[in-house]
């Protein structure tokens, strides 16, 4: 089983890297970009028997810092 975890800074938490990317896109002439948020994608290869609940626990304990980040889990 494979799982894909998306980790993003929460709304309201300033993302200076996303802002820098937005400025750079603007400088390239892409003038219709109104916002950029940058996050992480973490792919997990899981043994038989692993569950989505296990992945959620991994996110809570390590993969995301829920003070500043939100996450979503996609089972593939």
């Amino acid at each position, binding site marked *: 089983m494979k799982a894909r975890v998306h980790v993003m800074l929460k709304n309201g938490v300033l993302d*200076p890297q996303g802002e820098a990317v937005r400025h750079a896109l603007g400088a390239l002439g892409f003038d219709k970009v109104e916002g950029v948020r940058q996050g992480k994608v973490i792919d997990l290869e899981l043994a038989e028997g692993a569950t989505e609940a296990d992945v959620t626990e991994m996110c809570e304990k390590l993969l995301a810092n829920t*003070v500043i980040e939100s996450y979503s889990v996609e089972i593939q």
Partner: protein
Amino acid sequence: MKAAVVVFPGSNCDRDLAVAFEQAGFEVSMVWHKDSQLPEGVDIVGVPGGFSYGDYLRCGAIAAQSPICKAVVAHAERGGYALGVCNGFQILTETGVLPGALLRNAGLKYICKTIALSVATSDSAFTQGYTAGDVIGVPIAHHDGNYYADDATVQALKDQDRIAFTYVDNPNGSVADIAGILSENRRVLGMMPHPERAADEGHGGTDGVAMFRALSGLLTAA
């Protein structure tokens, strides 16, 4: 009076922190990240600056899960003293011992320079050698020192007088200019600036010495 300084793969201020403790009269032992116990009778644990585990995933995230950090958390929960500097502050927030988190600097640049730091409270073992309102010169050296906590947490820190230091001229975008905070029992301090790098004439400044002396005085008396 005993101090222990934790060493992670990638720590680079561990020896500086040990020397600062030693010069204030502490007997210092270094503890390795794989150790699961602190030495017997340790009064204060120093969590040093550096780039533990290469800052992989998030600064301090992997270190926070190391065996020694479980012992550090247990020490803090028992009411023991701890000082986390720079990466040590990031690690203490990742363990949940201190609230909030450290984000990438708002200007996206790594900043290494001596800055003006305002002492926000003298009501702690760490800051009792200063007077609230004192401005001291202490170096910063970080890429992720932008302190963030939600509004309710920041308000609680203010209400409980737990903001230890603020930046006079905010270099990194930290909320409320916060440079260092105390735990609820005021025995754990996390700060981005490096007091151990302002602890000897050779550093170009000695404004950090008062912190280590105050700790030493208090823990000797105890």
